[in-house]
């Protein structure tokens, strides 16, 4: 299974916010057994989607030099299930940064209605913790982000297109 929980970036402003889309489809394996006879996207994977969106926002803000991992879920409130055919529109905003981590707040909307609200904290893995070097094989992150349309929408604070960093 691919561990991609957003389909596409739709907006990305360095150090500020990011938006993305997650389409829920009935052929997704994760819907099969989660709740028999009532398929919906497991809410934890909505957190994961916004964590991927937010994790990239944080990593880019720190010039891809930190190993960013989801450390805590401060809040996760769901207002309605995400059903097959739904398109979730995620938005995450960088809220706080420290030398050792960052926080984001995020929302998920569906059909114009608030579907979920989250607050996440990311920590930066110290070198040597769990693994040395990057958490990705060389080039994998760049391929993933290209696939997710990041570089077609990403801009810096002045609105200039973001270059593809050689650090990814």
């Amino acid at each position, binding site marked *: 299974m691919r561990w991609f929980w957003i389909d596409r970036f739709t907006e990305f402003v360095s150090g500020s916010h990011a938006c993305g889309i997650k389409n829920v489809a009935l052929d997704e394996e994760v819907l099969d057994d989660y709740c028999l006879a009532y398929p919906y996207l497991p809410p934890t994977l909505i957190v994961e989607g916004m964590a991927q969106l937010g994790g990239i926002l944080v990593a880019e803000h720190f010039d891809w030099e930190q190993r960013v991992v989801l*450390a*805590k879920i401060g809040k996760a409130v769901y207002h309605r299930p995400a059903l097959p055919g739904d398109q979730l529109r995620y938005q995450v905003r960088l*809220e*706080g940064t*420290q030398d050792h*981590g960052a*926080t984001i707040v995020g929302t998920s909307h569906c059909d114009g209605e608030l579907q979920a609200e989250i607050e996440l904290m990311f*920590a930066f893995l110290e070198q040597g913790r769990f693994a040395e070097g990057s958490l990705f094989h060389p080039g994998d992150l760049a391929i993933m982000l290209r696939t997710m349309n990041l570089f077609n929408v990403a801009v810096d604070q002045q609105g200039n297109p973001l270059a593809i960093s050689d650090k990814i």
Partner: protein
Amino acid sequence: MTQYSDEVFEKVRTALVDALGVDDDEVTPEATLVGDLGAESIDFLDIVFKLEKSFGITIPREELSPEDILTNSQYVKDGSVTPEGMTELKQRMPWADLSKFEQNPRVQDFGNLLTVGDMCNYVATKI
């Protein structure tokens, strides 16, 4: 030592309740963050974010976590902080009550030193 207001205490309590999932009445001025409230290392980062947001302050890591002193051979001998090291700690953390720690200043015990009252005192020096 700095005196803090009820408002400071209430804001610190809210931050700790949110970060640690403890009950309001567990958060007393005397409660230690690690021993009594169960804070783990990752929680301290969360607490720092919450206090920064709540009070509109910036909290440099070294102010709450004097690792540079506790890992400096000039200030630590046989696993305990030397008198010289205690002087450094007191200068760095004038808001913390180090009197108990000073009686047997083993580095390994430092992590369980901070109390809710210490946090309130610290925040009061920043606002």
